[in-house]
């Protein structure tokens, strides 16, 4: 359980302002949804928090520690990418266990924890499958399990339910809310879908409202 604070973050790509003075404070264990139309910089905000994109100015603090200059792999920030980014050369279980492998957890225990997580996301017995054959919903669940298994301080979700068909979308929204709550993790979700935000998050904010009044 960790707090997250984004302060006055500004990002420009090739001279074009993408984010201009965005601030966001999150309590420990809180789930917030950031709403905005596509292209508004929501995804960039997550990337700044994860350390994938470096802000031109501003800072990111996790548990009151400034992590703006800390490389991604040392931030303990997990991210579920919009297109999942599962590793195609690894099995489902190896994908889920990847974070544990990076922290040096030994093989048998890695496998046990991966199987645990697969069960929690409703994919018990999927461990030895290839990620190639997964359906859209299954792949999303694997991506979620992979992120949570690494025990991150903060979880970031980039349009986690976009592109799934309606029925699956609604079912997964409920599951997602449940899984995130039971993990007790602080999470930021970005989406353009107000209903989805309401279904998953404790609090919904518009990206435009987070920007510095200019």
């Amino acid at each position, binding site marked *: 359980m960790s707090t997250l604070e984004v302060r006055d973050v500004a990002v420009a790509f090739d001279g074009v302002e993408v984010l201009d003075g965005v601030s966001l404070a999150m309590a420990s264990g809180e789930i917030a949804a950031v709403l905005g139309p596509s292209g508004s910089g929501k995804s960039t905000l997550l990337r700044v928090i994860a350390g994938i994109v470096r802000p031109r100015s501003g800072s990111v603090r996790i548990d009151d520690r400034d992590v703006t200059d800390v490389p991604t792999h*040392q931030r303990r920030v997990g991210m579920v990418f919009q297109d999942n980014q599962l*590793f195609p050369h690894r099995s489902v279980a190896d994908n889920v266990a990847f974070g544990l492998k990076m922290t040096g957890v030994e093989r048998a225990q890695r496998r046990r924890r991966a199987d645990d997580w697969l069960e929690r996301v409703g994919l018990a017995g999927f461990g030895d499958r290839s990620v*190639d054959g997964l359906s859209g919903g299954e792949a999303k669940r694997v991506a979620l399990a992979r992120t949570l298994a690494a025990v991150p301080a903060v979880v970031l979700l980039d349009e986690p339910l976009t592109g799934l068909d309606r029925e699956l979308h609604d079912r997964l929204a409920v599951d997602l809310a449940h899984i995130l709550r039971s993990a007790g993790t602080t999470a930021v979700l970005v989406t353009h879908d107000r209903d989805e935000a309401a279904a998953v998050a404790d609090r919904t904010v518009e990206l435009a409202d987070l920007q510095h009044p200019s």
Partner: protein
Amino acid sequence: MDRAGARVNRLPRWFVAALTVGPATGLAVFFLWPFVTLLAEALSGEAISATLGRDATWDVVWFTTWQAVVSTVSTVLIAMAPAYVVARFDFRTRRLLVGLLTAVFVLPTVVMGAAILALLPESLDRTVFAIVAAHVVFNLAVVVRLVGAMWEHLPTDMEAAAATLGASRWQVFTQISLPLIRPSVIAAATVVFLFSFTSFGVIRVVGATGTRTVEVEIWRRATQLGDIGGAAVLTVLQLLVLGAGLAWSTTAQRRHSRALGLTLRSPLRRPTGRGERRLVTGVVAATFAVAGAPLVALVVRSFSTPTGWSATAWTDLGRTEIRPGIRVGVDPWNAIANSLVNAVWATLFAVVVGGLATLAIAAAGRAGRVLDAGLMLPLGTSAVTIGFGMLITFDAPPVDWRASWWLVPVGHALIAVPFVVRATLGVLRSVAPDLTTAAATLGAPPVRAWRETVVPYLWRPLAAGAGLAAAISLGEFGATSFLSRSGGETMPIAIERLLGRTGSLLQAQGFALATMLAVTTIVAVAVTDRLQAGGPSAGRDRGSS
């Protein structure tokens, strides 16, 4: 498109046959026949047991193999960092860097050897280290381009995903990127291995007298010792090794290839943060140094004489007397003239044959594919094999052509034709069939329609092919070593001879000739590149995106 309509509007059979006959005959006479002669030579008599029973043979095979393995591993390891930087980052000198690597790659082998001799201190000249260094610098472009091209298609987000799971930059590389780009690494390693294994020009220039790869041994046995049978056996032995290598590589690539399912290139980005900027700057600077230093050394050494800096080597290029009255038997001016004449004819042959062949391949369906594959064969055979085969085939009447002025250019053209075909065929195939059909609807009979709609598109790629053919001919060393006669030395032959002598003026002249050849080759290939790209602005490397 209407199939029946296409059939009716097809070019007449006699016409396609007429196009095919020239290239096919040339291929049969100058490649297939010598090749069969060579095989027959190798498989007849005691040459097999005599050659395979000799320890020296296995020493040569062993040396060839291990130097090729060391060269390949070194090249791949060294080129991985620039491949990453070029695939991922946008920086000011990006195009220049890729251009330099390509320029180095197209250098004639003899020039590469000369550049390494020029760069390394005398204590390292003529050592295996020099050979490996030459192979590494030469082939950096192979790895950077092949591996870089695949790396670009690996989403940056996949690497970012690994980082969010706690993987450091190095772990991301070993756990995610490397396994996913492995097919391209294997492909690049195979190419580098093939080049290093069949290395001839580099070894002849850089290696010590006793240093022999299989290719050098073939040349020595055939031309110095008169052991034609032994040389032929070695040629076949080499073909077997190369065939095995290619077969392994193909299976390995297939086994490791995983559909990344990505057609988009990940966008390049500027390095951000101090660590990343340092990484990119360091790798770029080191790559420039490794690839550029030999070229700079080449030019510098052409101006260095025992009495200090001077342009003597350039101004007195024709004066090759060691002492008054004693000549070295190499005349640089004569070599330049020979090279130019050879290049003109080789280019002409290659363009005419290649152009006809392309038209035939495009028009002839299945027979065209056979011709296409056949014309590619000389690419898979080493130049030494081609020259050697021609030497032992055309040596008795009625085909005693050894003294004919055109034999060397024909050998060069054989090597250049595949490049002309590749440059042209793609353009030809992309001419919309509708265009020809449209001409037909306007009343043009098939041959006329074809001439009006297809032929006009050929000039540009043919010009590009001509540039490549000229560059290949000017730098060709392997086949020429067998086919050129005394007095007919080309520039690469003269360079090898001059650098093999002691005496710093001769060395400087060798470096001057090599510089000339380097500049000519690079200019020819650059011009070709522009022609193929369709204009100066549309380079094949994308800029920032």
